[in-house]
C-alpha cells in the first residue's frame, strides 16, 4: 500500500511538471488522468453556477477508485475562479446530487453504463476511462500514442445543461455533437 502511494506521488509530481516530454520521468497514465480530472472544472459551465459561488466544487469518484491518494494530491491547491475543489468518494449514484464532476467506474462495463444512465440529465460532468470498458461519459479517457487523450460527448453535456469551453473541445481527440 505504501509503495503504490509513494509511486503515485512521484507520478503526480511528474505530471504536474506539465508539458514534460513523455520521454522524461514517465508518469503513469493513471497519475496523468488524476491530474486532468480537477482541471476539467476550469472548462465547464454549470447551470446556476454549480453550487454557491464560494462553495467548493465537488469532484466525486463513483464506484471503484483507481486513483487512491493521487486524486487527493491532484486537487490540492487547485482553484477554479476562486473555488477550491473537494473530493468525495461514493459507492453508487446515491448522493451524487452534490457532485459537479464525477469519475464513474463500475465493477464491469455494464455497471458503469447503469451508473451513467442514473446520472444522465443531471448537471454533472461525467468522466469514464476506456480501460474500464466502452461505456462513455461526457469525457472518455483513452491512451493514444503513449499519451493520455480524451473524447468529448457534447450531446450528453448539453442534455445535462452543461456548457463546455471551446478550448477544451479543441484539444479533444473527438467531439460528438448533435449533428
Amino acid at each position: 500500500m505504501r509503495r503504490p502511494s509513494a509511486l503515485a506521488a512521484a507520478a503526480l509530481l511528474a505530471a504536474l511538471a506539465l508539458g514534460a516530454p513523455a520521454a522524461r520521468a514517465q508518469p503513469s497514465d493513471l497519475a496523468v488522468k488524476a491530474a486532468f480530472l480537477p482541471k476539467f472544472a476550469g472548462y465547464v459551465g454549470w447551470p446556476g453556477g454549480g453550487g454557491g459561488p464560494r462553495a467548493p466544487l465537488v469532484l466525486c469518484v463513483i464506484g471503484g477508485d483507481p486513483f487512491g491518494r493521487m486524486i487527493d494530491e491532484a486537487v490540492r491547491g487547485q482553484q477554479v475562479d476562486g473555488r477550491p475543489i473537494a473530493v468525495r468518494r461514493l459507492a453508487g449514484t446515491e448522493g451524487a446530487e452534490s457532485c459537479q464532476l464525477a469519475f464513474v467506474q463500475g465493477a464491469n462495463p455494464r455497471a458503469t453504463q447503469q451508473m451513467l444512465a442514473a446520472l444522465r440529465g443531471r448537471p454533472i460532468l461525467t468522466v469514464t476511462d476506456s480501460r474500464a470498458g466502452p461505456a462513455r461519459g461526457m469525457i472518455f479517457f483513452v491512451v493514444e500514442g503513449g499519451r493520455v487523450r480524451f473524447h468529448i460527448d457534447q450531446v450528453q453535456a448539453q442534455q445535462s445543461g452543461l456548457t463546455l469551453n471551446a478550448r477544451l473541445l479543441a484539444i479533444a481527440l473527438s467531439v460528438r455533437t448533435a449533428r
Partner: protein
Amino acid sequence: MRPLTRLADRWPNVPIAGGLLAVLLLVAGLLVIFQSAANYVALKRQQTEVQAQILAASVTAALDFGDVATAEEAVRAFGANREVSAAGVYDSRGRRFAGFVRKARPLPDRIEGITRSGGNVLDATAPVVRGGARIGTVYLQVEREPLSRRAARYSVIGLLAVMAALVVLVLGVAHTALRRANRELEARASDLGLAYGELQVQVEERAKAEEQLRQAQKMQALGQLTGGIAHDFNNLLTVIQGSADILKRPGLEEAKRIRFAEAIVQTAARAAALTGQLLAFARRQPLKPQVLDINARILGMTELLDRTLGERIGIVTRLSPGLCRVKVDPAQLEAALLNIAVNARDAMPDGGTLTLSTGEAPPLEDGRAAIAVAVADTGTGIDPEVLQRVFEPFFTTKSVGKGTGLGLSQVYGFAAQTGGEVKVASTPGEGTVVTMILPCSDAPPEEEAAPAAASAARRRGRILVVDDNEDVGALAEALCAELGHSVVRARSAEEALDLSASGRFDAVFTDVVMPGMSGIELAERLRERAPGLPVVLTTGFSDRLAEGGAGGLPVLYKPYRADALAEALEAVLAPQRPEEG
C-alpha cells in the same frame, strides 16, 4: 567654364524665400512621414499585444493538458503571418512548452532567457490564464516594419527631397528668366529714352531752324521796309533840298520863290503822310477815335471815291440798315477805304464795278459783336502766293512810282488797332474782296468837334518850349516867336522845372519823348507846382500816348504846321483870360 560661372551668378538670384519655403516643405513632409511611421509602430505594438493575448487564449487548454501538438499547431498558425518572426509558449514554471522561429536564432528554453529585443522587431508577452489562475506565458515577436513598407517610406522621402530640389530649381530658372526679361525691358526703355532724347533734339533743332528762318524773313522784311522808306524819302528830300537850294539864291523872282517854297511845303506834307502810314502799320499812329455810323461814313465817301476811281468804274453800295455803331478814327477809316479802292482801281484797268457793302459779322474771338465792311472788285484777282504778302509794308506789285506798298499795310494796322481784323479773299480772274471786321461800340455817337474858330485877335503869352532836339526846339522857338509869343527854351524836363520855378509862364509846350524825365512826367510835376499852368504835348509817336492817352492834355503831333501850333497855343491860353481879366 562659362556655364559654371553663369550658374554661380544665378544661384544667388534664387529668392531666399523660395528656397526657405522648399526646405520648410521638405521638413514638414519628413515630419509627417516620421509621425506616420511612429503611429504605425504604436499600432503594430498594440496589434502584437492583442495577438499575443489571442495566442495565449488559444493555447490555454493545450498548455493545461500538456497537449504539445495542439499548442505547436496554434503557434504555427500564427507563423502563417509573414510578419511574425517568433512565437513561444512557456508553462507556469517558465519552461518552453511550444515554439516557432522563422529565423535562425532559436527561442530560449526558459522565459527568463528572452531579452526584449529592439532593432527591427516588436515583441509582446501575454499570460495564459485558466479559471483565474495563471498557468503560463506566451511570447510573440513580429517584424517592426515590413521591408516593402520601409522601402516605400524611404522612396517617399527621396521623392519629397527631389521635389523640393525641383521647386528650388524651377524658382531659380523662373527668377533668372524674369531678370533677363526685366533687363531686356530696361534696355528697351533706355533705348526708348535715347530715341526720345534724339527726337527732342531734332524738335529743338527744327524749332531753332524755323526761328532762324523767321528771323531771316523778318530781316528781309525789315530790309524791304528800310529800303522802301529810304527810296521814298530820298525822292522827297531831293525835292526839298533842291527847292531850298534855289530859294537860297540871291535875287530870285518872287513868283519862283513862292513856287519853290510851296514845293517844299507840299513835299513835306507827303513825307508826313508817308510816316503816318508807317505808324498806322506799326499800330502806333495816334488815333482820334469817334463813335460813328459806318453806313453814313461810306455814303459820305462815295463822291470822293467816284472821283478817285474814274468813269470806267461803277460804284455800288449795299449797306445793311440798323447796324451797330463803331468807334474808329474817321480819317483812318477813310484812308483805309481809299487805299482799298485805289488797289481795286489798279486791278481793273479795263473798268469794272466796286461794291461797298456792310453787314453784321460773327462775334469776335473775345465775344464782342462786330460788323463787316467789305470792298469787292471785279478785277484780275491776286495770286495765292502774292495773297500771303499783301499786308507786308512796301510789298507791291505795282511799278515804281505807282504805289508805295503801304496801302494795305495801313488797312491792316487800322483794323488791328481798332480791335478788329482784316481778311482778303481773291479768285484770280474774277476779283478780290477785302473785308474789315470792326467791333461794335455801345457808346453814344459823338458830334464831330467843331473846328476851332479862328480867332482874329491872337492871344500872346510867355511860352516855355521844352525839346531835347536842337533843330526841332529851335524851330518851335522860332514859330512861337513868329506868332508873337515871348519864348524861353529848355533842353530837358529837369531844366524846364528849374525855369518854371524861377519865372512865370503862360503855357508850356513840351516834347514827350526825352532822355530822363518825359514830357508827361514833366506835366504831372508842373501840375503839382503850378496847377493853373497849361501844358501842350507834342510828339512824333509815343507808345505811352497811343496806349495810355495824354491824360487829358492837348497833343500836337509832329510834323505840325505853324497854323496847328498857333491853334493849340491859342486854345490853352484862351480860358485864362477871363480869370485874369
